[in-house]
Protein backbone atom coordinates (compact mmCIF):
# COMPACT_ATOMS: atom_id res chain seq x y z
CA UNK A 1 0.00 0.00 0.00
CA UNK A 2 2.79 2.41 1.00
CA UNK A 3 4.85 1.58 -2.09
CA UNK A 4 1.85 2.21 -4.32
CA UNK A 5 1.38 5.70 -2.80
CA UNK A 6 5.06 6.48 -3.27
CA UNK A 7 4.84 5.56 -6.95
CA UNK A 8 1.84 7.87 -7.43
CA UNK A 9 3.66 10.78 -5.75
CA UNK A 10 6.74 10.21 -7.91
CA UNK A 11 4.68 10.12 -11.11
CA UNK A 12 2.97 13.39 -10.15
CA UNK A 13 6.31 15.04 -9.36
CA UNK A 14 7.81 14.02 -12.71
CA UNK A 15 4.73 15.31 -14.53
CA UNK A 16 4.97 18.67 -12.73
CA UNK A 17 8.66 19.05 -13.57
CA UNK A 18 8.19 18.40 -17.27
CA UNK A 19 5.30 20.92 -17.36
CA UNK A 20 7.34 23.77 -15.89
CA UNK A 21 10.31 22.97 -18.11
CA UNK A 22 8.33 23.42 -21.30
CA UNK A 23 6.67 26.71 -20.29
CA UNK A 24 9.71 28.85 -19.48
CA UNK A 25 11.58 28.62 -22.75
CA UNK A 26 10.81 31.88 -24.67
CA UNK A 27 10.29 34.37 -21.84
CA UNK A 28 12.76 37.21 -21.88
CA UNK A 29 13.44 38.97 -18.64
CA UNK A 30 15.35 42.10 -17.76
CA UNK A 31 15.93 45.30 -19.70
CA UNK A 32 17.32 43.83 -22.88
CA UNK A 33 18.71 46.34 -25.36
CA UNK A 34 16.67 46.14 -28.52
CA UNK A 35 18.57 47.74 -31.35
CA UNK A 36 15.92 46.63 -33.82
CA UNK A 37 13.19 48.62 -32.09
CA UNK A 38 12.80 51.01 -34.97
CA UNK A 39 12.72 48.56 -37.82
CA UNK A 40 10.51 46.19 -35.88
CA UNK A 41 8.04 48.97 -35.22
CA UNK A 42 8.06 50.00 -38.84
CA UNK A 43 7.09 46.44 -39.70
CA UNK A 44 3.59 46.55 -38.34
CA UNK A 45 4.62 46.21 -34.73
CA UNK A 46 1.79 47.28 -32.50
CA UNK A 47 2.06 50.49 -30.54
CA UNK A 48 2.00 48.66 -27.29
CA UNK A 49 5.05 46.70 -28.32
CA UNK A 50 6.88 49.83 -29.37
CA UNK A 51 6.11 51.65 -26.16
CA UNK A 52 7.08 48.78 -23.91
CA UNK A 53 10.29 48.04 -25.73
CA UNK A 54 13.17 48.92 -23.49
CA UNK A 55 15.52 51.08 -25.46
CA UNK A 56 18.96 52.16 -24.45
CA UNK A 57 19.88 55.47 -25.96
CA UNK A 58 23.03 56.15 -27.90
CA UNK A 59 25.79 57.84 -25.93
CA UNK A 60 24.17 56.85 -22.69
CA UNK A 61 27.00 56.71 -20.21
CA UNK A 62 25.17 57.54 -17.03
CA UNK A 63 22.15 56.27 -15.22
CA UNK A 64 19.16 56.36 -17.48
CA UNK A 65 15.84 57.89 -16.62
CA UNK A 66 13.10 55.48 -17.44
CA UNK A 67 9.69 56.53 -18.62
CA UNK A 68 7.03 54.13 -19.83
CA UNK A 69 9.58 51.40 -20.38
CA UNK A 70 11.88 53.60 -22.45
CA UNK A 71 15.27 54.44 -21.08
CA UNK A 72 16.41 57.89 -22.08
CA UNK A 73 19.95 58.93 -21.31
CA UNK A 74 20.75 61.77 -18.93
CA UNK A 75 22.59 63.49 -21.78
CA UNK A 76 19.43 63.78 -23.83
CA UNK A 77 17.29 64.84 -20.89
CA UNK A 78 19.83 67.47 -19.80
CA UNK A 79 20.14 68.68 -23.39
CA UNK A 80 16.38 69.21 -23.62
CA UNK A 81 16.26 70.85 -20.21
CA UNK A 82 19.02 73.30 -21.13
CA UNK A 83 17.50 74.13 -24.52
CA UNK A 84 14.10 74.76 -22.98
CA UNK A 85 15.60 77.04 -20.35
CA UNK A 86 17.65 79.04 -22.85
CA UNK A 87 14.71 79.50 -25.20
CA UNK A 88 12.50 80.97 -22.49
CA UNK A 89 11.03 84.23 -23.75
CA UNK A 90 11.44 83.36 -27.42
CA UNK A 91 8.85 82.14 -29.91
CA UNK A 92 10.18 78.63 -29.30
CA UNK A 93 9.56 78.67 -25.56
CA UNK A 94 7.01 75.85 -25.53
CA UNK A 95 8.31 74.04 -28.57
CA UNK A 96 10.72 71.82 -26.63
CA UNK A 97 7.99 70.27 -24.53
CA UNK A 98 5.67 69.97 -27.53
CA UNK A 99 8.12 68.49 -30.03
CA UNK A 100 11.17 67.22 -28.12
CA UNK A 101 11.99 64.71 -30.85
CA UNK A 102 12.65 67.48 -33.39
CA UNK A 103 15.09 69.17 -31.02
CA UNK A 104 16.93 65.92 -30.33
CA UNK A 105 17.05 65.09 -34.04
CA UNK A 106 18.35 68.55 -34.92
CA UNK A 107 20.98 68.37 -32.19
CA UNK A 108 22.24 65.02 -33.46
CA UNK A 109 22.18 66.33 -37.04
CA UNK A 110 24.38 69.28 -36.00
CA UNK A 111 26.78 66.87 -34.32
CA UNK A 112 26.93 64.79 -37.48
CA UNK A 113 27.79 67.80 -39.62
CA UNK A 114 30.61 68.74 -37.25
CA UNK A 115 31.86 65.16 -37.28
CA UNK A 116 32.06 65.42 -41.06
CA UNK A 117 34.42 68.36 -40.61
CA UNK A 118 32.09 71.24 -41.30
CA UNK A 119 32.82 74.54 -39.55
CA UNK A 120 30.35 75.59 -36.81
CA UNK A 121 29.77 78.93 -38.55
CA UNK A 122 28.84 77.15 -41.79
CA UNK A 123 26.48 74.78 -39.97
CA UNK A 124 24.80 77.72 -38.28
CA UNK A 125 24.61 79.74 -41.47
CA UNK A 126 23.08 76.93 -43.50
CA UNK A 127 20.58 76.07 -40.78
CA UNK A 128 19.40 79.64 -40.16
CA UNK A 129 19.09 80.37 -43.85
CA UNK A 130 16.98 77.26 -44.38
CA UNK A 131 14.96 77.95 -41.26
CA UNK A 132 14.11 81.54 -42.18
CA UNK A 133 14.33 81.35 -45.95
CA UNK A 134 16.64 84.34 -46.02
CA UNK A 135 20.19 85.42 -45.27
CA UNK A 136 21.47 84.96 -41.72
CA UNK A 137 21.94 88.73 -41.43
CA UNK A 138 18.22 89.23 -41.96
CA UNK A 139 17.24 86.59 -39.40
CA UNK A 140 15.34 87.54 -36.28
CA UNK A 141 16.73 87.25 -32.76
CA UNK A 142 14.53 84.26 -31.91
CA UNK A 143 15.75 82.22 -34.87
CA UNK A 144 19.40 83.10 -34.20
CA UNK A 145 18.94 82.21 -30.55
CA UNK A 146 17.28 78.93 -31.49
CA UNK A 147 20.03 77.90 -33.89
CA UNK A 148 22.86 78.90 -31.55
CA UNK A 149 21.25 77.34 -28.51
CA UNK A 150 20.62 74.01 -30.21
CA UNK A 151 24.17 73.91 -31.58
CA UNK A 152 25.87 74.89 -28.32
CA UNK A 153 23.86 72.61 -26.06
CA UNK A 154 24.05 69.74 -28.54
CA UNK A 155 27.83 69.95 -28.49
CA UNK A 156 27.84 70.31 -24.70
CA UNK A 157 25.63 67.30 -24.07
CA UNK A 158 25.43 65.10 -27.16
CA UNK A 159 28.85 65.41 -28.80
CA UNK A 160 31.32 67.06 -26.41
CA UNK A 161 34.21 65.91 -28.62
CA UNK A 162 33.44 68.99 -30.75
CA UNK A 163 33.80 71.48 -27.90
CA UNK A 164 37.13 72.77 -29.18
CA UNK A 165 35.69 73.32 -32.63
CA UNK A 166 32.99 75.52 -31.15
CA UNK A 167 35.35 77.45 -28.87
CA UNK A 168 37.75 78.17 -31.70
CA UNK A 169 35.27 78.25 -34.54
CA UNK A 170 33.88 81.76 -34.33
Amino acid at each position, binding site marked *: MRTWRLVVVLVLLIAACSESGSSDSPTSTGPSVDTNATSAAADETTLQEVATTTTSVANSSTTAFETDGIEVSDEILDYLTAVEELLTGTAYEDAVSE*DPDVFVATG*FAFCERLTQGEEPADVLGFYVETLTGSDI*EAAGDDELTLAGTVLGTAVGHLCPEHTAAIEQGF
Partner: protein
Amino acid sequence: MRPGLTVSLAVAVFMTLFTAGAIADEHEKLTGLDRAARATMQGLEKSQGRATEAPGQENRAQGLDKQRDKVTGRERAAAAIAAALARGNGNGNAFGRGHAAEVLGILTGELPDELNETNHGQAVREMVHAYNALRKADGGG
Protein backbone atom coordinates in the same frame (compact mmCIF):
# COMPACT_ATOMS: atom_id res chain seq x y z
CA MET B 1 13.94 122.58 -6.82
CA ARG B 2 17.55 123.15 -5.80
CA PRO B 3 20.07 123.67 -8.64
CA GLY B 4 22.31 120.91 -7.33
CA LEU B 5 19.48 118.40 -7.48
CA THR B 6 18.50 119.50 -10.99
CA VAL B 7 22.05 119.02 -12.24
CA SER B 8 22.26 115.58 -10.64
CA LEU B 9 18.99 114.55 -12.24
CA ALA B 10 20.10 115.81 -15.63
CA VAL B 11 23.38 113.90 -15.38
CA ALA B 12 21.53 110.71 -14.37
CA VAL B 13 19.13 111.00 -17.29
CA PHE B 14 21.99 111.67 -19.70
CA MET B 15 23.96 108.67 -18.44
CA THR B 16 20.93 106.39 -18.76
CA LEU B 17 20.26 107.48 -22.32
CA PHE B 18 23.93 107.22 -23.21
CA THR B 19 24.19 103.68 -21.85
CA ALA B 20 21.00 102.57 -23.59
CA GLY B 21 22.25 104.04 -26.86
CA ALA B 22 25.59 102.30 -26.49
CA ILE B 23 23.90 98.95 -25.88
CA ALA B 24 21.64 99.43 -28.91
CA ASP B 25 24.66 100.42 -31.03
CA GLU B 26 26.54 97.34 -29.92
CA HIS B 27 23.56 95.14 -30.81
CA GLU B 28 23.37 96.80 -34.23
CA LYS B 29 27.05 96.20 -34.88
CA LEU B 30 26.79 92.48 -34.16
CA THR B 31 26.22 90.48 -37.30
CA GLY B 32 23.63 87.72 -37.44
CA LEU B 33 26.39 85.16 -37.17
CA ASP B 34 27.82 86.99 -34.12
CA ARG B 35 24.49 86.79 -32.38
CA ALA B 36 23.99 83.12 -33.25
CA ALA B 37 27.55 82.42 -32.11
CA ARG B 38 26.86 84.17 -28.84
CA ALA B 39 23.83 81.94 -28.29
CA THR B 40 25.99 78.93 -29.16
CA MET B 41 28.54 79.87 -26.55
CA GLN B 42 25.81 80.40 -23.97
CA GLY B 43 24.46 76.95 -24.72
CA LEU B 44 27.89 75.40 -24.48
CA GLU B 45 28.73 77.22 -21.26
CA LYS B 46 25.47 76.16 -19.71
CA SER B 47 26.23 72.55 -20.60
CA GLN B 48 29.73 72.81 -19.25
CA GLY B 49 28.46 74.42 -16.06
CA ARG B 50 26.34 71.34 -15.53
CA ALA B 51 29.19 69.03 -16.33
CA THR B 52 31.70 70.69 -14.00
CA GLU B 53 29.29 71.22 -11.14
CA ALA B 54 31.17 70.32 -8.00
CA PRO B 55 29.23 70.43 -4.76
CA GLY B 56 31.53 72.21 -2.32
CA GLN B 57 30.77 72.40 1.37
CA GLU B 58 29.97 76.13 1.27
CA ASN B 59 27.67 75.66 -1.73
CA ARG B 60 25.99 72.63 -0.35
CA ALA B 61 22.52 74.14 0.00
CA GLN B 62 22.71 75.80 -3.41
CA GLY B 63 24.04 72.59 -4.93
CA LEU B 64 21.14 70.64 -3.54
CA ASP B 65 18.71 73.15 -5.01
CA LYS B 66 20.36 72.83 -8.39
CA GLN B 67 20.22 69.06 -8.11
CA ARG B 68 16.51 69.27 -7.42
CA ASP B 69 15.97 71.58 -10.41
CA LYS B 70 17.91 69.21 -12.61
CA VAL B 71 15.75 66.29 -11.57
CA THR B 72 12.65 68.36 -12.22
CA GLY B 73 14.03 69.36 -15.61
CA ARG B 74 14.76 65.76 -16.46
CA GLU B 75 11.31 64.72 -15.36
CA ARG B 76 9.78 67.39 -17.57
CA ALA B 77 11.91 66.35 -20.50
CA ALA B 78 11.05 62.69 -19.95
CA ALA B 79 7.37 63.54 -19.74
CA ALA B 80 7.63 65.47 -23.00
CA ILE B 81 9.23 62.48 -24.70
CA ALA B 82 6.58 60.15 -23.31
CA ALA B 83 3.91 62.55 -24.58
CA ALA B 84 5.50 62.64 -28.03
CA LEU B 85 5.42 58.86 -28.11
CA ALA B 86 1.86 58.70 -26.83
CA ARG B 87 0.78 61.24 -29.44
CA GLY B 88 2.49 59.13 -32.06
CA ASN B 89 0.67 56.11 -30.75
CA GLY B 90 -2.62 57.86 -31.45
CA ASN B 91 -5.30 55.29 -32.09
CA GLY B 92 -2.84 52.71 -33.22
CA ASN B 93 -2.93 53.53 -36.92
CA ALA B 94 0.05 53.17 -39.23
CA PHE B 95 0.85 56.89 -39.09
CA GLY B 96 0.92 56.82 -35.29
CA ARG B 97 3.12 53.77 -35.23
CA GLY B 98 5.43 55.38 -37.75
CA HIS B 99 5.82 58.44 -35.55
CA ALA B 100 6.43 56.39 -32.41
CA ALA B 101 9.08 54.41 -34.26
CA GLU B 102 10.62 57.66 -35.50
CA VAL B 103 10.85 59.07 -31.97
CA LEU B 104 12.46 55.87 -30.72
CA GLY B 105 14.87 55.93 -33.63
CA ILE B 106 15.90 59.51 -32.86
CA LEU B 107 16.46 58.65 -29.21
CA THR B 108 18.73 55.80 -30.17
CA GLY B 109 20.72 58.09 -32.45
CA GLU B 110 19.27 56.66 -35.65
CA LEU B 111 18.46 59.83 -37.53
CA PRO B 112 15.67 59.62 -40.05
CA ASP B 113 16.49 61.08 -43.45
CA GLU B 114 13.34 63.16 -43.23
CA LEU B 115 10.92 64.17 -40.53
CA ASN B 116 7.23 64.49 -41.30
CA GLU B 117 6.23 68.17 -41.14
CA THR B 118 2.55 67.53 -40.62
CA ASN B 119 3.21 65.72 -37.40
CA HIS B 120 4.40 68.82 -35.56
CA GLY B 121 3.21 72.16 -34.24
CA GLN B 122 3.31 75.31 -36.33
CA ALA B 123 6.32 76.85 -34.56
CA VAL B 124 8.37 73.74 -35.22
CA ARG B 125 7.47 73.09 -38.85
CA GLU B 126 10.20 75.38 -40.11
CA MET B 127 12.59 73.52 -37.84
CA VAL B 128 11.51 70.25 -39.41
CA HIS B 129 11.98 71.79 -42.85
CA ALA B 130 15.47 72.98 -41.88
CA TYR B 131 16.30 69.56 -40.42
CA ASN B 132 15.26 67.87 -43.65
CA ALA B 133 17.48 70.28 -45.59
CA LEU B 134 20.40 69.54 -43.25
CA ARG B 135 19.99 65.83 -43.87
CA LYS B 136 19.70 66.26 -47.62
CA ALA B 137 22.80 68.41 -47.76
CA ASP B 138 24.39 65.69 -45.68
CA GLY B 139 23.61 63.13 -48.33
CA GLY B 140 21.00 61.56 -46.08
CA GLY B 141 23.52 60.38 -43.49
